């Protein structure tokens, strides 16, 4: 009851902001939902925005199972995009069936390398992975900018590469802008669910997350798991970066991601790390983000203003009474 009231509060407060901006909040909300959920096209745009969130959220949920906090999705995503772009620019002449797997692999390697550093540092007990992933987040976009501005930019622009050759683009589905990244995201979430539920790895990871000391005494190689799981998580986030440049944008733009990795952290945290929860939460977040485009077009407020509505919704969920909270894993 109280929870529903607070959710309403978020919408009322944002409505107030719309009202001060000189627009009818009720009509704006109606338009927002009608344009995202009311048409096949609107829905497809929501799914487009949702796709990278699935992957960056999984990159947080996976290490969370063994008690690791990966705040570095943003950086891992950038490194994945960076390496995948190098592949697209270097081997652009190859046919798609060969080039795309290469790019996927490169994207995953880029993200994995970026997560390997925090993984090793944590496994050896040198630096906490929360701090190191956070620091590396800010380094990765600079590396991308270094390559884009210095070497890869197209003759016309300084801040982006030339459009990728058609063979370097992920195929789209159903004649919409939804790309193969969606299938990859959903597929990986399903694999994650299966592995955690019914394999030895899943069991050992749950043991490590539940009681690390007992797990270690039972002979579970904790260090190897820490490094391995961090690398896997980085690879997944790197794949998100690859899908963004190869599917959504078709070019590598400096600073293209404004917090997709961070949003993945929030999604995973809100979903309690459950695969179904991640899909549902990503979808809801994507509705709000897609609505931002509409507000910009019809109401004339800057696109990022929609972050207010998003954050207020997050605040409400974060502030929910603690007895409804299932678990505290991010």
């Amino acid at each position, binding site marked *: 009851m109280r929870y529903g009231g607070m959710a309403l509060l978020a919408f009322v407060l944002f409505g107030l902001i719309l009202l001060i901006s000189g627009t009818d909040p009720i009509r704006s909300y109606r338009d927002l939902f009608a344009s995202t959920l009311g048409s096949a096209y609107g829905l497809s745009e929501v799914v487009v925005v949702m796709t990278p969130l699935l992957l960056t959220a999984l990159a947080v949920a996976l290490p969370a199972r063994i008690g690791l906090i990966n705040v570095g999705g943003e950086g891992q995503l950038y490194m994945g995009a960076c390496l995948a772009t190098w592949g697209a620019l270097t081997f652009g002449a190859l046919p798609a069936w060969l080039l795309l797997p290469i790019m996927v692999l490169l994207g995953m390697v880029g993200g994995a390398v970026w997560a390997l550093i925090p993984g090793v540092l944590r496994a050896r007990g*040198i*630096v906490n992975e929360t701090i190191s992933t956070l620091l590396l987040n800010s380094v990765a976009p600079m590396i991308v900018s270094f390559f884009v501005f210095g070497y890869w930019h197209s003759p016309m622009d300084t801040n982006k590469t030339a459009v990728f050759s058609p063979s370097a683009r992920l195929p789209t589905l159903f004649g919409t802008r939804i790309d193969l990244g969606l299938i990859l995201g959903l597929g990986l979430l399903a694999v994650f669910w299966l592995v955690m539920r019914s394999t030895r790895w899943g069991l050992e990871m749950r043991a490590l997350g539940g009681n690390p000391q007992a797990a270690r005494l039972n002979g579970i190689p904790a260090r190897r798991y820490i490094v391995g799981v961090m690398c896997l998580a980085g690879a997944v986030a790197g794949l998100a970066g690859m899908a963004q440049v190869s599917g959504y944008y078709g070019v590598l733009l400096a600073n293209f991601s404004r917090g997709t990795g961070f949003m993945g952290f*929030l999604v995973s945290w809100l979903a309690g790390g459950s695969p179904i929860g991640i899909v549902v939460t990503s979808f809801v977040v994507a509705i709000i983000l897609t609505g931002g485009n509409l507000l910009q077009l019809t109401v004339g407020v800057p*696109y990022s*203003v929609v972050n*207010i*509505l998003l954050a207020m919704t997050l605040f409400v969920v*974060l*502030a929910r009474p603690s007895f409804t909270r299932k678990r505290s894993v991010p």
Partner: protein
Amino acid sequence: MSPLALLGVLSSAVFSGTSLLYTTLGEIVGERSGIVNLGLEGVLLVSAASGFSVTSLTGNPYLGVLTAMIAGGLMNMILGYLVLSRKANQLASGLALMFFGFGLSAWIGRGFVGARIVGLPRLALPGSSRLPELYGSLLRFDLLIYLSVPVAVAIWWLLFRTRWGLGVRAVGESPDTAYASGRDPRLLRYQALWLGGMLAGAGAAHLSIAYAMNWTEYMTAGRGFIAIALAIFAKWHPLRAVVGALLFSAAVAFQLLLQSSGIQVSPFLLNTIPYVLTLVVLIAWGGRRRVAAPASLGRVYQGAE
């Protein structure tokens, strides 16, 4: 290198480093009480936007600075409410605050993109009038710059030489122990967050009102995260933060100088210095307990009831 060029590098380092110093001091105060604020970037943006818009509307930059500081404090109160009163996860709450700041600052600043303001007045360094004209022009700073080092000393004094500071540090190490010795962890953390927010607000005000003198979306460009890195680099000590902030901004200013003498160093690689250096320092410490962070940093305090 001529002394004039060196002075130019120092002067520009001071100008770009001041916002970083205030922000780092703010994060240090918060983290000493056990709260890590990942939303610092959002706090800075909201402060920068509100300070700039008030300056633009009233024509009074000092009023703008004051507004920015209050805005910073209020932003941190949101974090405080979530993590202290609602016992929410600190990292998630901080990131949500960051997105809130992205949105709110864009909304506050939407009518002020491209607006022109009278920035914080620059006052000549006493005695610099006797120097040649060119040198004197490099030695004109605004009030926030003159106050930055005294403020750092004041924060050091507050944290390490007062009862309040002892309480804050005690809460940061162990809220339960602090509670047992008669302190109110929640109240102290709220106070530390308010002070930290005001300091971050002052940093943001220097950025938008004195340094850049304009407003653009995302104008802080990662300064919040640099400050978080610097707080670690400074081992959570206000006076080391002064050295850190100056060091990093001097590196960037130095790059401009190198460029003008024909040596090309990528600005993007130089911008990674704060993060890479902090990581290197952390590795050098090697997780030794002696230099470790405030012990309760990032943990939820469940209360002693």
